[in-house]
């Protein structure tokens, strides 16, 4: 284990079986198809992709909220997927998750204070007045008034609820957070506050983030490196500025061209993808992106041979047959 590969995900695969039609064959969606990547200590790795790309499944498998079918997850040298229940619970103190919709992940009948004291008690961190003091400190750290302690979730605004979600994740003093669409339910003016808060917390606590989002601009604001996913696979992985400035995969280029920018005069590459992502139940042969790919050099090879994710240039990985020429 090195600081560069503090968290390692190797060939992670997750299938979801589909309801079987009468006498029909068993079918499964391959949500995650042999994904490998590493996260350095203190780093933010962004994961972008459209719905069905597998980005949420990746996040959940990484902290073992979902059991992958195959592959490995190593966290600070520990094999996470083979831990027994007790050891996993201890490990959970170190890795936590922040969800998109805190309204769904908070118990509506529990006041904020009680909701935050629960994990503190479960993990035996503090009890009684000490636990209370700790919760009040946490509320302050995420920018909430101590009065929030006695509120119910429905009495808070969306932004305040997301701050509670973050405080709950922090309550057990984790080192690694999976942030799954942390601002996509929030208004712009409030989302910006939460993004700034996440940046501050990372600096102050030395946290490591896996940031999952569909919004490329949101990811760019926090991420050091970015992975782009398509149909359960990573198709490009590179330092953020490089990936946004000079994408190697045609799908990344198309995503960047489609992302809304609030400037009608902005010079945008006119890339249009035809059709929709194919079904993950029966992905196309060859490169999974080839049916929609606008690359001028697209050839028969793309329909037959699946491009591997490879290091095209130092620290720049792409899964496209033409990545070397693009670079």
């Amino acid at each position, binding site marked *: 284990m090195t600081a560069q590969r503090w968290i390692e995900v190797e060939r992670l695969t997750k299938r979801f079986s589909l309801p079987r039609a009468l006498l029909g064959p068993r079918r499964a969606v391959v949500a995650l198809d042999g994904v490998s990547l590493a996260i350095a200590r203190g780093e933010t790795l962004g994961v972008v992709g459209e719905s069905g790309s597998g980005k949420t499944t990746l996040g959940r498998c990484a902290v073992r909220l979902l059991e992958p079918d195959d592959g490995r997850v190593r966290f600070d040298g520990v094999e996470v997927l083979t831990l027994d229940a007790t050891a996993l619970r201890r490990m959970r103190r170190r890795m936590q998750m922040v969800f998109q919709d805190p309204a769904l992940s908070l118990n509506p009948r529990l006041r904020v204070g009680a909701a935050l004291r629960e994990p503190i008690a479960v993990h035996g961190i503090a009890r009684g007045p000490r636990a209370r003091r700790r919760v009040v400190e946490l509320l302050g750290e995420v920018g909430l008034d101590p009065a929030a302690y006695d509120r119910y979730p429905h009495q808070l605004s969306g932004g305040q609820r997301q701050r509670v979600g973050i405080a709950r994740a922090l309550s057990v003093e984790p080192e690694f957070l999976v942030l799954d669409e942390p601002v996509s339910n929030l208004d712009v003016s409030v989302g910006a506050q939460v993004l700034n808060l996440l940046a501050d917390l990372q600096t102050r606590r030395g946290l490591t983030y896996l940031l999952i989002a569909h919004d490329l601009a949101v990811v760019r604001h926090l991420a050091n490196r970015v992975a782009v996913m398509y149909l359960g696979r990573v198709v490009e992985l590179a330092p953020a500025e490089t990936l946004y400035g000079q994408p190697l995969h045609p799908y990344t280029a198309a995503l960047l061209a489609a992302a809304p920018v609030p*400037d009608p005069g902005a010079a945008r590459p006119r890339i249009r*993808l035809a059709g929709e992502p194919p079904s993950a139940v029966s992905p196309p042969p060859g490169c999974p992106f080839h049916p929609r790919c606008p690359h001028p050099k697209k050839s028969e090879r793309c329909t037959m041979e699946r491009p591997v994710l490879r290091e095209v240039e130092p620290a720049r990985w792409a899964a496209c047959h033409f990545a070397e020429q693009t670079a």
Partner: protein
Amino acid sequence: MKPILSVRDLTAVFALRGGLETRAVDGVSLDLFPGETLALVGESGSGKTTLALSLLRLIPDPPGRIDSASRIEFDGTDVLRLDAGALRRIRGGGMAMIFQEAGSSLNPVMTVGAQIAETVRVHTGLGRRAARGRARDLLADVGLSDPERLDQYPHQLSGGMQQRVMIAMALAGAPRVLIADEPTTALDVTIQLQVLDLLADLQQRLGLALLLITHDLGVAARIASRVAVMYAGRIVESAPAARVFGGPQHPYTEALLQAVPRLDRPAGRLPAIPGQPPRASEWPAGCRFHPRCRHAWARCREQEPALLSADADHAARCWLLAEPERRAQ
């Protein structure tokens, strides 16, 4: 040119518990011209959806009602004084509306062809066979030319295709105004772009007036010719799109453009807007944005500004237009 839709002092009032009332939309005026796209931009609770629903008299009454001083004129007709029959003809025939969740607006147990054909028959009185033919043409117009689509059910279509079906259905009555409420919010960006291209294309081809309601400044920038920004039930800024994005006059618009993460600006700390949007039950006194405004002074707390002209086609509801020397650096 005369506007196809003209709104004056539109106020939508909702009854709250305890006999209180709230003005979700408060004295809004706007004009929509044939062949233009006006984007109504605002955060949640700003009143933009209530405004859109009010235009077709679709807000639930009670608890909602449109204040009697409001005027909505569609092509010279006073919408608020129409009887039920005439209102039905205007809905879909004059002004049609599409929503964010296309999937939940479609009938799950009817094929999309049958749903569109039924809408065609309601508006045109065509016979079954002719209506089915028209449905096929409408689907082709929205980019679903594959004839097998007619016999598919909504759940067999992707979100993007469902939204295309909704658009086809909205076009069945040959409307002149299309109101699109967050039409691409539930869609992935590459599909979102396809649907925005389609809306822009239809608007050109059919000369539609498009009222696009969105929280997403980037979506508005993509297809709007004019932009009206809503905050706390009011329009706070209105101008041609290039002016709103290039030289915003209202501090809210300016702050919003700074706070949104953007691909065209360097990454770094976002200048967030402090606080949060107010609720309709507690609009602040004075200028409704003053508690969050970095320029605010005594006058802003006491007195609400009208929409003041920056120039001929650019207005903002801000005292800075009267006292520009107050603008903080």
